[in-house]
């Protein structure tokens, strides 16, 4: 393992990511959880940047942390106060998922470990936005159309679900 500056940055970011995500998951108040999640998403964006995807990092911040999480906050703010005792921390509620995830984690670890390719060091690279866009609209134009259709369906659905009963 070559300990250069990029590697150090990566591990730091990784630790930050895991910490903030863990914190987000275990908050009682949804607002706190969302705020921690925003930090975690920004960390992911930084990781994207590190891994050579600057456009994607931008999209992550703009769309994910910027739009989606804000939407979450809107909905949380408009919800009336709910009973705080409903979602209290129960050890037994967490035990089973933790155990199962441990199981899955161990098997994933082993799988990754057994793969000879996994020990390869990643070569630093960078995808220019121009290249990214060209690839997106040249080769994946069909997927783009479908995703736009999907967004439209989401829009229409949200609109329908949110209508006021007259």
């Amino acid at each position, binding site marked *: 393992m070559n300990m250069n500056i990029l590697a150090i940055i990566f591990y730091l970011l990784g630790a930050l990511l895991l910490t903030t995500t863990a914190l987000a998951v275990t908050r009682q108040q949804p607002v706190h959880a969302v705020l921690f999640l925003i930090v975690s998403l920004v960390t992911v964006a930084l990781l994207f940047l590190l891994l050579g995807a600057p456009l994607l990092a931008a999209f992550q911040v703009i769309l994910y942390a910027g739009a989606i999480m804000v939407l979450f906050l809107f909905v949380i703010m408009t919800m009336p106060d709910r009973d705080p005792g409903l979602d209290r921390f129960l050890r037994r509620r967490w035990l089973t*998922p933790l155990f*199962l*995830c441990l*199981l*899955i984690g*161990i*098997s994933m670890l082993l*799988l990754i470990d057994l793969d000879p390719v996994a020990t390869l060091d990643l070569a630093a690279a960078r995808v220019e936005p121009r290249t990214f866009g060209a690839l997106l609209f040249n080769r994946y134009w069909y997927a783009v159309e479908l995703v736009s259709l999907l967004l439209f369906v989401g829009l229409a659905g949200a609109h329908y679900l949110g209508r006021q009963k007259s």
Partner: protein
Amino acid sequence: MTMMHFHLTFLLLFPLAGAVSMICCLPMGGRPLPRRVGETIACGASAGAFVMAGLAMWTMGDEPFRKVFWQWMAGPEFSSEIAILYDPLAAVMALMVTFVAALIHIYSVPFMRQESDYLRYFFLLNLFVFCMLTIVLADDLLFLFLGWEGVGLCSYGLIGYWYRDPANCLAGRKAFLLTRIGDAALLIAIAIFFSHLGTLSLTAINQQAVDLAPGLITLAGLLLLFAAMAKSAQMPLQVWLPDAMAGPTPVSALIHAATMVTAGVYLLMRFLPLLSLSPGVMLAAALVGAVTALLGAAAALTQRDIKRLLAWSTISQVGFMFLGLGAGSLAGSMFHLLVHGFCKSLLFLGAGCIIRLLRDEHDIFRMGRSLRLRHPPLFAAFAIGVVALAGLPPWAGFFSKGEILAAVFYHPGPGYRLLWFMALLAALLTAFYAFRLLLLVFFGAPPPDADEKRDPVFEPLPALMPALLWPLALLALAGGLLNCPLAMPGGHWLSGYLGTAPAPPGGEGSISDWGLLGLDGLIALVGLGLAWFCHGPADRLGWRLAAAPESTAHAVLRNGYGLDSFYRLLVARPYQAMAGFLWKRVDEKLVDDSLTGAGRSLLTTGRLLGLWTTGRLTTALQSLLWGAAAIFGLLLLGIWRALP
């Protein structure tokens, strides 16, 4: 020989047709046929069989007549046919069987007058006669076995005739099961004969018997002896006969005095050429006979129930027949069979009259002298029977027993003298209990609790019933003439007819011959004296014996030496326990409950699975994670196993 063929075919067919026509007389949807019609057909069938038996005997020539009716089974190695062998032995037996059967059929008509179920009775009775004649005439072992089983079946049906009382059914079942044990032995013997001689024909087996190994002859002989012991109620298999008295009295007279119990003896007679090749079997037969004669007579001495007394007497007298066969005397055994058939059926029919008169009273201590005073002909006939049974000279029993005792005495084999002595004791006891019976029934003082002033009221008795006793009484009186031992005109007719050598080694008319006869007569008189002493007009023992509590020895003798309890403990209880176990633990718990349990477990599984369908979102999400974990777990397992 077509006349013979005709006679013998109809001899067998008449009773069978009688039985079948009983079924046809059943009221099937319409009005039943009049009672007289059914009774006439039944008695007519029986009488017709007797006529045929007589005609067949008349037209028989010098050679035994053998006829195959048809092939019953034929396989590549095995064949069996419906065949009959009519020789002098069969002729005499058939005549006796049909005569007694015809008499009893006619006796049954007034006896069963109150029964509405008479068709079943006559059906079984006719079928019984057919099966007995099958045994008498058969030349093929499987055909004989058919008759053998048939008489067992009819006996079971007739003992349990009054089936609504469960005790009668129990008695019938007991008889059937015990004779079945003997039938198993007979089947093994049949198998031995077939596997070693390749034939099932009696004549062929008797001829080829010399070809068998001596051990095999002894084995087959012992098996046949065992089968005969079960059928003829010898010790220790006699437990069914006293209980079989639960049936109607004519049934007891026919089946358990004259015919079925003699079927065992007859089987041994048919196989005598084979059996006489093995001295061991002969000794065993003689031993069984002597022991049974003695123990049976002792037990008869202590009985109170008139029919049970006669049953034990039958057991003892058939023992005499076994003894005679064991000593090699075919004529003596057959002579005693005939005489006993007449005497015992006479006594049973008389007992039937007495029981009917006294309104179903079986206890001999409750009968009395008023019986004799009001019904002298009944007393006379009964007395003839008793005297003939006891062996008082010059009546029939004296000659028949004398023949057997002489044969035993002169037999050169080891231990026969002891057997002769036992038989002598048995003869003494026979005379004792026979006269005791007569004195108690007809001369006894009335019971102390009865009203001395008034005469007991008797049931009216149909006149036909006592009238039928007289043919039998005449035969009991004159039967001695069949085979007189002395050099009288017509002497030894039966031996000559059966073709066996009559003369004892001591020579006819010798001192030992006379001495033996004298001893027999003396014994009978001593027995008479004893009975007179105990139960005579002085009545020394009569009521004291009846009223006092039973001593242990007396109880043992009366109960048949505890053999009933012995069998119950050794055989019936373990079998019942095993059957109960198999029923409750295996069939109900294991089989039934396991099936129910399987069904219930399916229901439970379904219910448990149903707990999963909560419909909640949380459950669905959790299940997703579980599923993913399961897949990865399997992956982990695969990785672990693939590791070097």
